């Protein structure tokens, strides 16, 4: 269900494995490497992934999605290593009977994956600088989670 890929993600091959004759709605989210972040020109980026726990936590997120928004099939793959502009960093897909569950489960998975998995992103900028991305939105969500009941 959840995996880490060290090489290019191939959306079309993955999509074909999602087919289910009972599925009427199919929602995909892809995270792409974009050329700018917080005003800085990005050249490429690098994901560091601690695989044993990323996979365990990824599977947990997907089980939660299935419980909250029951669906037929789900798959998520996240890249590790060096990525160029336009590369697919993460691919999440949900097939379900109706579209509502497909959208909601897909959104739930990507939102949780961004804040819970031991994955770190280092941006390499056009000006030669580089830096670990401190996802402000993620940190604030994580904080809300830990502050919650």
């Amino acid at each position: 269900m959840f995996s880490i890929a060290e090489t290019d993600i191939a959306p079309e091959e993955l999509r074909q494995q999602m087919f289910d004759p009972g599925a009427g709605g199919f929602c995909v989210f892809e995270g792409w490497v974009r050329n700018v972040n917080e005003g800085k020109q990005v050249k490429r980026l690098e994901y560091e992934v601690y695989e044993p726990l990323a996979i365990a936590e990824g599977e947990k997120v997907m089980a939660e999605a299935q419980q909250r928004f029951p669906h037929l099939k789900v798959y998520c793959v996240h890249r590790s290593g060096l990525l160029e502009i336009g590369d697919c960093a993460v691919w999440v897909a949900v097939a379900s009977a109706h579209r509502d569950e497909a959208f909601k489960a897909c959104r739930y998975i990507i939102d949780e994956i961004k804040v819970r998995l031991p994955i770190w992103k280092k941006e390499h900028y056009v000006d030669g600088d580089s830096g670990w991305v401190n996802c402000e939105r993620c940190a604030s969500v994580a904080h809300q989670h830990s502050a919650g009941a």
Partner: protein
Amino acid sequence: MKKITIRYFAMFRENAGVSEEVLDMDVATALDVFEQTRSRHGSSEPIGHCKVAVNDVMADWSASISDGDTVLLFPPVAGG
């Protein structure tokens, strides 16, 4: 004293200059390990933005640490 294996990731690893070290420590919780290695992982990140795992299981900062445990210190994550 407990023998603790500490693993640093991403920013923490770069700042520490090592990815892993084994230390004899006087610690009760994961938080103690974090605090006592703060100079090595050299980060001003609020602890609420960081995470910890003990023996490859995600843990709370209040988790008890035993002799022989491996503590993984995670700086703020940014998947996706």
